[in-house]
């Protein structure tokens, strides 16, 4: 064996360690720097869900009843989360569900969508696919023509990775 090609165990470990630290530090640096820069430039005005609800409904009482919210418990893709709001309230001429609201608590802008219904809909149901920034509560609020508010809340876990290839 040539002398030049000999390499001691110690040297090898040092080099391997170096290589590893180089890789690690590069990646950790990146992860430390990235969000701070990104956040400074990109973070939009964040609205808190309580403020949004207060602005929209004032101090009116919201009852947790008469609304059913269907969501997946785990969403592997936060960009497509199907949500269905169902209410068992009647859809008659003078007593019907006037409006359905959908909110996502942890989104920068929690208000996601609303639908004004009329008795011609026959059934107070709305299904939509929405985006979620991260794991959060989804809430639906239903407003009747008589001015009452009902609501339902459900938690949706947004996971990244997982087995869904």
């Amino acid at each position: 064996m040539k002398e030049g090609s000999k390499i001691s165990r110690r040297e090898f470990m040092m080099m391997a360690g170096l290589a590893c630290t180089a890789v690690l530090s590069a990646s950790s640096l990146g992860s430390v720097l990235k969000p701070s820069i990104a956040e400074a430039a990109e973070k939009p005005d964040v609205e808190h869900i309580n403020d949004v609800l207060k602005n929209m409904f004032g101090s009116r009482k919201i009852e947790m009843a008469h609304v059913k919210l269907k969501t997946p418990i785990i969403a592997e893709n936060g960009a497509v989360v199907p949500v269905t709001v169902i209410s068992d309230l009647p859809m008659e001429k003078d007593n019907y569900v006037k409006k359905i609201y959908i909110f996502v608590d942890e989104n920068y802008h929690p208000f996601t969508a609303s639908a004004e219904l009329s008795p011609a809909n026959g059934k107070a149901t709305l299904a939509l696919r929405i985006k979620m920034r991260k794991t959060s509560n989804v809430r639906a609020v239903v407003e009747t023509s008589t001015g009452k508010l009902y609501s339902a809340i459900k938690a949706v876990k947004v996971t990244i990775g997982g087995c869904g290839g």
Partner: protein
Amino acid sequence: MYKNLFKIAVCLAVILSPLMAVHDVWAGGDSASIQEYEQGCTYEEYEKTYLEFYGNSTNEMAEEGNPAELMLDDGKDLYNTVDGSKGKSCASCHGENGEKLVGVAVKYPKYDPAIKGINTVALQINRCRENQMGAKPLKYESYDQLALTLYVKSLSNGMKINVSIDGPARKFYEKGKKFYYTRMGQWNFNCAICHVKYSCKRVRTNLLSPNRRHGDHWPSYRLKWGKTGSMQRRFRGCMKNMRAKPLPYQSEEYRNLELYLTYQSNGLPLEVPGMRM
């Protein structure tokens, strides 16, 4: 000088070794040497665990609307569209509403002597287009190809899957099984570890499904994709997760695997389009 070069080489090897470990080791052949696993749980047990784990949300959502149903209508239009040099559409041979194709899709994938291998619905559509219509084959996993596959399969909806592995198909079934049990990729996994041995167990937030019902609902709308895709797209996704190199669509290995998996669903009704997590 040599010493330095060697150092660099070792350094590179250390850094690159995780990348190089992505290798492809599989071969066709008999499945006699395969060590089979015991099934972790039955499908009925899985459904129960699923309800406890996820709730009934996916089924309920499918009732409110599966976006793939709209794709199905496009597939019907394509079926009746004349294309290619011979001035024919699918309907010219198979009947206007596809009445001659009712009950055909449940027998697929099946052995076809013309290609000396396993034929799938998607492949057959492209072969029809080339040979009978004189039209260009559709790109696999493109919108049109999926829509047409979906429509043809939907004609057999509700019928029991009846895939045959008798005769020449047996060899390809064994090859598919071999593939299913071949360890691959950086994680050194095979399909069967998750879907046979550890079915009903959890991998972080995922519940592993047994392979009994993997063949009855494709092409399916998947929330993860936000799109409709084929079974083979799922194969590719699984292989990426095992950190193995995914194979091209309709490659021989994937067609064999499709036969193996669809055979596991024999006797179940075909339900397309599916909707799942």
